[in-house]
């Protein structure tokens, strides 16, 4: 019984959501209820994720493991932000500036790090992967896309050059669509495996 009830809930919920696409009017009320419950659960799970994060850093500080000083910084920053959010509310301009003036530079810096990483990676790609069909086609398509994005090539509409540029722009999209179709199939099969109770990795063994 301990294993049967969760499986039943899983199957009923999955089928109800799936049927909601084909019977939207008839099942809108049920689906609305299920979706609201789902959003609630996911929100709580998000809080649990934050709790796991805090637990990791607290344990590190208590046992004074490697990186404990950084964990202290994380915990202090978290407590200050949480306290100010409760005291001042998110609509307060001071709180908004406090958070965004730290978050935006940090995330922008990480994005810059990504840019440097991609630059450096493009320099080393041949050295790492060698002259293979995959790496050469990747490099050529990347070069063409970058050159087109500079927008120095802008033929007039209706001309042959315009058509050729549009065709070249669409070739990567065709490949992307192919990959996404395959991915959608894979996702469909994985979801069906869950619904058909063929795969339950999170269940107790």
């Amino acid at each position, binding site marked *: 019984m301990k294993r049967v009830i969760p499986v039943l809930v899983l199957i009923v919920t999955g089928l109800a959501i799936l049927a909601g696409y084909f019977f939207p009017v008839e099942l*809108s009320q049920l689906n609305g209820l299920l979706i609201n419950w789902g959003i609630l659960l996911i929100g709580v799970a998000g809080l649990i994720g934050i709790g796991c994060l805090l637990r990791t850093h607290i344990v590190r500080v208590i046992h004074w493991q490697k990186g404990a000083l950084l964990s202290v910084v994380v915990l202090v920053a978290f407590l200050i932000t949480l306290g100010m959010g409760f005291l001042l509310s998110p609509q307060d301009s001071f709180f908004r500036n406090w958070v*965004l003036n730290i978050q935006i530079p940090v995330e922008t810096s990480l994005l810059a790090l990504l840019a440097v990483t991609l630059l450096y990676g493009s320099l080393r790609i041949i*050295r790492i992967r060698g002259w293979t069909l995959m790496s050469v086609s990747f490099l050529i398509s990347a070069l063409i896309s970058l050159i087109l994005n500079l927008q120095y090539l802008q033929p007039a509409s209706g001309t042959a050059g315009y058509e050729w540029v549009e065709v070249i722009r669409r070739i990567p999209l065709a490949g992307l669509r192919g990959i996404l179709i395959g991915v959608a199939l894979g996702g469909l099969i994985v979801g069906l495996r869950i619904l058909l109770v063929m795969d339950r990795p999170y269940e107790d063994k």
Partner: protein
Amino acid sequence: MFKLICPECNAENPLGAEKCKDCGTILEGAIPEDSNQEKGSDLEKEDVNLSDLLHLLKHDEDLNQFNEKSEKDSVSDSEQADIESLSEQVEEEPEVPEWLNRIRQRAQAEPDSVGEVTQKIFAARQSLEDAENERQQQLESLLQKIHDEDEGTAPSEDPERIAEPDEDVAPDTIRGDWLRRIRKKHRPAEAESADEILSEREGDSLLHWLVALENGEQPLEELEEEEFSKQSTHGEITQEIKYIVNPEDDTKKFILNDVKGTQLEAMVLAISQEDQARVEQLMAALRAEKSARQVSTRSGPAFNRGLRLIIALVLIAILSLALFVARSDARLYGRLRPQAQSVGEWVHNLNDNSSILLVMDYSAAFSGEMELISTPILKEIFKTGAKVTTLSSVPAGRLLFDRLIEVGSLESRQTVADLGYFPIGSFGAYGLANQITQARNQPEFAINLSVEPFDNILIIGDDYEGVMAWIEQIHSLNPEMPILLLLSDQAGPLLQPYWESGQVQGMISGISDSVNLGVESNESPNRWLAYQVGTVLMILMLLIGMSLPGSRNSAVTKGDEQ
């Protein structure tokens, strides 16, 4: 009472038995032996101490040598007579004793017996070398004692103690016991001399052959097959191993030289090729286990760090120049794309009765670019008086919207409600679309929405994934709902098929579309120039990377290409 002794297991079988009762060996040709001769049967049952045998044989040979020399030396007549009598007795012995036959058979049938012999020979040889000098001086007295003991004394010492000459044991007593038993078994009435014993061991006797090898009298037989030799360097034993392949019986013979510091010249051990293959496989596995693992190491980490630093500094320097040094009055030129033009038309058609759901789906990292794109559009929207409701699919979405308003200096914020944060974009989109449908068809159940159904949905996104989920979920349930997109430059190209298929009514992608639409700001030219410079840098890096020589590192790890 006579009994048949099994040549294999030495078990006693009754006369007339065709097969041994223990091992089943055919007893044809077995010589009946008198079981009443206890001492003789005891001799058969006891394990022959080969070291004892060789020790005595050695002494017998020395005796022969001494006899040859003694012709020139002055010895007593009585001792000469004794020596001659011993040699006569040995010469007269016509038959090979049964125990010796069994030893030979055992040596042929059991390969490991050779090893035992070798070990015992080593110990005997060692003892012989140590006591050689001393024994020569005592040879005469030993001969005399042997002759006396043949008369009937029964020594009680353990024959195996002969293998340890350092101990306080009378070697003559031990050897006499062994010899006495042999003589009493075969010729109980006659005394046997060492010469007789030695002579009967001539020919293909294993023991005699081994002793002869020791003395250098028996040369090694040279085989016709090809001979290999290799130095074994593994482990603690360093020795030269020669092995000879005999294709006839598919075996290899290993000839070990200088094993463990002994001076034994050669020992042949036959091993089949299957066993050899197994041994080689095991050795290879042991070597592989002990060998250093190939680790994916990076050559020149300091060089890589330096190169990354140089690239970063070059990027920062050039982009900074483009951002701060470029002229701010530079005009951007470009072709206005139809999807961007549609957004302009859509904004133009808004009125104060319109309700717009504004979905915040970009992260703080892209706030600079999205503020540049979105602020002019929002300004136009607020000018029309349309009702705007915000919904966030990122945690900081509401904060980012307030920043948009603040940066854009937007005076009127006609937000009807803030629907909050939806943890999963696609989930929230489906729920929203479902609620819209429910509110439209069954208004009495529309308890979740605080506003009427929306006329338009405007999504501000930095990544095509989230926007794609919104489009697919909403369009599948509400195909008539107009969806417009304000996107970063990286998301635009991937979402263009949605515009071309009609699922999206308009989209602005990147700074260039925003500028070409005519909603440029003071910072747009510099930003666009910096973007172009960064793109050119990327192109240069790709070209330089293609021109650099390839590395063998690509072959280290498998699975490089699919």
